[in-house]
Structures are given as structure tokens and as C-alpha cells.
């Protein structure tokens, strides 16, 4: 009964109700799209950043993260690696041996990051092979190196030339080797492009006298939601023997960058919703005071005030939901379209993303919580606004109202 009555009341002044609903519609549409692109970009940023290099989790020697010394390298044998892979939700476990060293070709010497990798496992995780622009990918046996394009340009080397590695190995032993360049890889991040040299793991272990050792084991998890489960299993498995790093610890900048972006997005939403709330409030207030006479008549002929309050509150809620529903419906195709066709960022803005180590793409999230949250916010606004007609009716003096 109440519902039918309040629904009809809404349509007594169509244009006004529609405009009020339109302002809610607009707010919800905007809020949903904005949250979707923010959340979607975060998930994408995290996944692509961890996949790029660090993985969601890494097992390292104690103290390795701070001083990156080969002395903190560790031994994780094949059997242990297999055990890690058997943990549910673990997709890959990639062993690496990393060291800084000088790399020279003829008269030019550059500082580089040397990374010993298992070519197949590495490619499964980071798709290193796809980044090859010249030459061949590493195989298990030969002793060549893959070199970043920027570094190759600076050293003026090409496929077939040799480079000389010169640095410090395990326990300070001198590490030196002459290696042929078998391929050139290109990274979007210039720090990597200008510094990275890859070679096969056994080869790196020999050169740096770190026989059978690795500096880190990068672990990929299927989705970020399962990261904690895997973390606990790994913690139990290694029993504090090694350090277990999460991507949040390895990339604090990314975490805080997301937090700050999220915070400024929320501030924008709050301001937007305040403006919308005033719009709804104004409409409801006018709708209410316009009908003072009508309310007064109803009360005089015996209608309970509490029932009237019910009807007018329902009107407000309807109005809000009408807008929220329409906003959600319209936002769905937009979000789903861009979810499957992410917008690439071009031009100068792309460079800013590159410095964060993220590929410049706007991604959209279809997480249901985005829609639900906006609906909840709108409901709260509507309920708060509904207080006005309730108070108005509560205070209404039928005699005065009819006379005026």
C-alpha cells in the first residue's frame, strides 16, 4: 500500500522527479566508472609489476634485500622447488642469481645488473622471450648473454660481439668472463633497458663462484587474493631459515602510490556526493513544503502521522534508487567494454607511468563491490535526506497549514 502510494506520488510531478533522479544517476555513473578504472588499474598495475620481475613473493637469504650481497645467497634444491610448486595457487617459482658488475666492450665500460636465470622458467613468468628484438633467446647449455637494448647501444655491441664481465663474486672472489652476446632484449623501463644482462643460471653460478646458489626465488601466485595463503605455507615450509618478502615490501612505492591515488579518488567522490546530497535534499524539501496543505488534510481526516512519514520516506528512497539503478545499468556496458578493451595511455603521460615501472594502460574492474558500494552510499544519502519530510510532518500543525 505505502509503496504504491509513494510510487504514484513520485509521478505527480514527473519532470522534477526525473531531474532529481538524473542528478543521482549522474553521480552514480561517474562514481562507478571512476572507482572501476581506479581499482582495475590497481589490480592490473600490481599484477603486471610483479609479473615483470619480482613476483608476488620472493624467498631470499637473510639480509639480502638490504645489501644485495652475493654472500647472502642461498641454496634451494630442485626437490624444495618442486615442493613449493606443489603448494596450491602457486603458478611458478623462478630461481635467480643477481649481481652488479662492470661490463665492457672495446673501450666502453658500463655498470650492469647481471642476472643468472633458468631460461625456461624465467620465460614462463616474465615472458622474457617476447622482449627479444634481435638474436636468439638463451637456452640451458651455451654461455651467451642477453643484453638490454639501451645498454647494447651504449656499449656499441650487437649480436655476435663479445662483452667482458668484471666484478666481485661470492665471498669477494674476483669474477671475470668473456661472453658472446646472443640476443638483445628491450624493456619499457629505461633503468632496466640500460642496465640488464641475462645469462643462464649455471653459467652465472660459475662466474660468480656461487656454485649451486641463488640470491632469490620469485614466486607467482594465481591471484592476489591467494597471496596470504601461499605466504603462510611458505613460512611454515622454511621455518624462518630464509627471508620471505612480499611485493608490498619489495615495491613500497607502488603500494603507497596506490594508496595516495585511492585517497584522492575518495576525496573527489566525497565532494561529489556532498553536492549531489544537497541537490536531492533541495528537491525533497520543496516536494514536501509544496504539499503541506495536502498533508494537513490527510491528517485532519484521521491519517496517522507515522504512516505519512513512511510514504514520504519511501518516495525519497525510490527517487535515489531509481537514479542509482539507471546509473548502474548505463555504466555496465561502458565498464565491460573497456574491461575487455583497455585504454592505452599515450604521449608524455605514458612516460610518467614508465618511471613507476608500469605499462601505461587504463584498465577497468568489474568487481561487484564497486556497484554495491555506490548503491549503499546513495541509500545512506537518501535515508539522511528522508529525515526532513519526517521532521516536517512530525511538526505539522494541520489547522495552520490548511488556513495558510
Amino acid at each position: 500500500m505505502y509503496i504504491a502510494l509513494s510510487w504514484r506520488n513520485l509521478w505527480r510531478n514527473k519532470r522534477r522527479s526525473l531531474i532529481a533522479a538524473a542528478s543521482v544517476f549522474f553521480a552514480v555513473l561517474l562514481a562507478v566508472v571512476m572507482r572501476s578504472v581506479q581499482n582495475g588499474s590497481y589490480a592490473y598495475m600490481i599484477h603486471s609489476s610483479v609479473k615483470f620481475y619480482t613476483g608476488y613473493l620472493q624467498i631470499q637469504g637473510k639480509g639480502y634485500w638490504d645489501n644485495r650481497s652475493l654472500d647472502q645467497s642461498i641454496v634451494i634444491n630442485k626437490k624444495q622447488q618442486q615442493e613449493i610448486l606443489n603448494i596450491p595457487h602457486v603458478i611458478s617459482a623462478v630461481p635467480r642469481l643477481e649481481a652488479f658488475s662492470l661490463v665492457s666492450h672495446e673501450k666502453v665500460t658500463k655498470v650492469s645488473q647481471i642476472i643468472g636465470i633458468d631460461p625456461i622458467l624465467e620465460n614462463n613468468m616474465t615472458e622474457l622471450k617476447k622482449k627479444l628484438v634481435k638474436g636468439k633467446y638463451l637456452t640451458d647449455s651455451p654461455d651467451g648473454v642477453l643484453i638490454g637494448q639501451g645498454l647494447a647501444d651504449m656499449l656499441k655491441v650487437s649480436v655476435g660481439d663479445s662483452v667482458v664481465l668484471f666484478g666481485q663474486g661470492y665471498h669477494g672472489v674476483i669474477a671475470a668472463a668473456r661472453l658472446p652476446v646472443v640476443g638483445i632484449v628491450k624493456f619499457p623501463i629505461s633503468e632496466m633497458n640500460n642496465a640488464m644482462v641475462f645469462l643462464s643460471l649455471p653459467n652465472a653460478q660459475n662466474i660468480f663462484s656461487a656454485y649451486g646458489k641463488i640470491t632469490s626465488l620469485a614466486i607467482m601466485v594465481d591471484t592476489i587474493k591467494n597471496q596470504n595463503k601461499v605466504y603462510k605455507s611458505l613460512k611454515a615450509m622454511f621455518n624462518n631459515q630464509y627471508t620471505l618478502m612480499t611485493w608490498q615490501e619489495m615495491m613500497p612505492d607502488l603500494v603507497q602510490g596506490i594508496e595516495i591515488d585511492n585517497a584522492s579518488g575518495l576525496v573527489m567522490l566525497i565532494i561529489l556526493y556532498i553536492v549531489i546530497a544537497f541537490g536531492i535534499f533541495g528537491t525533497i524539501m520543496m516536494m514536501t513544503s509544496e504539499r503541506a496543505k495536502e498533508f494537513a488534510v490527510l491528517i485532519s481526516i484521521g491519517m496517522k502521522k507515522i504512516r505519512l512519514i513512511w510514504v514520504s520516506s519511501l518516495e525519497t528512497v525510490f527517487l535515489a534508487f531509481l537514479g542509482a539503478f539507471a546509473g548502474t545499468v548505463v555504466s555496465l556496458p561502458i565498464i565491460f567494454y573497456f574491461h575487455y578493451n583497455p585504454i592505452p595511455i599515450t604521449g608524455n603521460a605514458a612516460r610518467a607511468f614508465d618511471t613507476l615501472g608500469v605499462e601505461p594502460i587504463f584498465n577497468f574492474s568489474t568487481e561487484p563491490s564497486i556497484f554495491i558500494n555506490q548503491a549503499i552510499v546513495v541509500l545512506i544519502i537518501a535515508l539522511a535526506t528522508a529525515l526532513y519530510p519526517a521532521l516536517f510532518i512530525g511538526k505539522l500543525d494541520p489547522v495552520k497549514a490548511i488556513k495558510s
Partner: protein
Amino acid sequence: MLASLAWKNVWRNKKRSLIMILAIALGLWGSLLAGAIWMGWGESMVNTAIDRDLSHIQIHNQKYLQNKEITNFIPDGFRVLKETISVPGVKAASGRTLIEGMAASPISTFGVKIVGILPVEEKKVTNIHTRLIEGKYFESNDRNPIIIGKKLADRLNLKLRSKIIISFQGLDGSLIYAAFRIVGIYKTESALFDQSNVFVQQANLFRLLNTEPIIHEIAIRLQSSRLMPQIYNEVKTKYPNLSVQTWKEIAPEIAVTSAAMESFTYLFLSIILLALLFGITNTMLMSVMERIRELGVLIAVGMKRIKVFTTILLETIMLSLTGAAGGFAIGGITIAYFSYTGIDFSAFASTMESFGASPTLYPFLPMSMYIALPLMIVITASLSAALPAWKAVHIEPATAVRIY
């Protein structure tokens, strides 16, 4: 006449007008403050980068930009340096000898940029000397003093007065090793900078390199950043064979991000105004519908329809501008207050630092925004007046007077 009529009309339903005025004021206040914080952030990023190492204008050998080899120094660099210092408007200039090398401690090795400076000159251009957290800025009599960043010190596990081994390629391609004594440790907003830049005195480098004095970079600090385009042109025409760049060319990502902050502010303001547009339309529409009989009479007694239209338009603009004035006033006061005290974002310090901004921000709005905004509001008001005014103009006097 119409204006005073319109102004009086605005105040006929005080409560309704006040709600809209409040909505506009709050919406603008929020978005102005948020915008000012973003602008302050952008400014802080620019200023810290300029003070830290960029300065306003830099001169290099053109070949150095492609390949940062030690042999690509500025020919006759000290003469160029002397001449640039005497250019009017130049506050100071510092010649820097730049070498890429490795810094090693007993436990680890990192790639670094070795910056050879004349402390007295460099002090006038950058503010690293004020950023020392330990030690002094080249005041001791050590043989090879060096100043390194906190991050590098941590990574190499070195302390003040520790010895650090620096290795780099000499002019003839041979490798040079030298022990330096850490006399100072600095910390800036950028961890990346702290990790990769070490400062030494030029004389020590020249001795190690066994060369005549050479410099690779001339960093020019101007008396005011407003002089930048003019002095840039002057220097550029004077040295056609050298590369002359402003900080915007050297660090485009900072220039882009700081410019993006302004666009972002405008975008946000437009969204808020769009949301307000719905509210204003609704308010005015109701105001017109309420007065339909009165407007009908006015038209019947011969008031020109264009004048009715103008009255409604004026009412809307006055309502909006009153709200805007309120928003401007509280917004302006808040921004002025915070631009004096600064807003402390230490909770996000590490992100702010990774973006290269200081954790205390001084919000501000550019003058152009204070001019553009009232215009944007008048446009919004005119747009929202369109429907109500159209409605008012198309009143059939006969029907209106009879029915309402």
C-alpha cells in the same frame, strides 16, 4: 531593473535558494582546496628536483646525451662556465665532472654516478649541502673525501668515516680503482637519487684520471624561473654546438606530472559543476513552476518574452554567483591559511618522496584559475537556466492564469 527584480526573486524562497547556494559553495570549496593541494604537490615536485640536482638550465656536449662516456666532455668547458656565469640573470653556475662507476664495500657493489664538483660553486646551485644528516660538506683534510646518500650507505653497510672503493673507466679505457673516505651522508626526497649519486671534489678526480680539468655538465641556476626562456635562448644561440636544455627537457616526466595537476584540477571542477548543474536546473524549474500564474500575468499585461527569459537567466546566474562567491571566500581563506602553515602529509611521506615531493605541501591556485572559475560558473548557470527559462517563455498566458 531586470537585475534588481531577479535578485529579489532569488530571495523569495530563502530556504530553497540557501540550500543551492550552500551546495555550490561547499562543492567549490572542496574542489578548490583539493585542486590547490594537487597544484602544491606539482610545484613541490618541480622545486625539489630543481634544488636537488636539475637546476634551471644544463649544458652538455651533444654526444654526452646519447652516450654518457667520460670522453664526451664539454670542449673548453671552463671557458664556457666562466662566460655563462657572467650572463645577466644567471645567479650561479656549477661545472660538474660526471663519471659512471661502481661503488664497492666489503659486502656489496652498486653502480653509481660520480659527480665531481667544486664545493663552493655547487653550493650556490643545489642544496645537497643542507641535506647532510651526518658529517660535513668537504671541510676535512682527507686525501679523497666523498659524500654519499643515506640509501647507498645502508645498502653498502657503510658509515661516516668508512672507506669506500670507487672504480671507473679512465679516459684511455683503463680501469681506475680508488679508495675514498666518507665525510658526509645526505638524504633527499628521492631514494633513487640518494642511491645513485656520490659527490667528490673535482681535483681528486683529475688527479686520478691524470688529466687536465674537464667537465661534462654545466648546471645554471637563474635569479628567477621567469627568466628561463629568455636566458635559454641566449645561451643556446651563443653555443650552437653544445646541447642546452631546460629542466623541462631534462626531466619531462616531472614537467608533465606538474602540468597534469592543473588539468586534473580543471577536470575535477568541471565534474563538480556538472553535478551542480542538475541541482540548479531543478531549483530554477521549481521556482518557475511555482510562479507560473504570476509569469502568465506578466506576459498577458505585455512583458516581452525575451525579458522574461532574461529575468530567469539572471536569477540563475545570481544564485550561482552568490554560491560561488561563498565558495571562493572560504576556499580562498583556507588555501591562504594552509599555504602559510603548509599541510603535513608525513603519513604518506615515502610515497611523496618516491614522487619526489616533500611531505609538507603548500597549496596554491594559479591566478588564471581565479579568473577562469567565475566564467565556468556563469556558463554552468546559463546552461542550467536554459530549461526553466524556455519553460517560462512558452507559458500560455490564458491557460496559466485560468488554471493555476
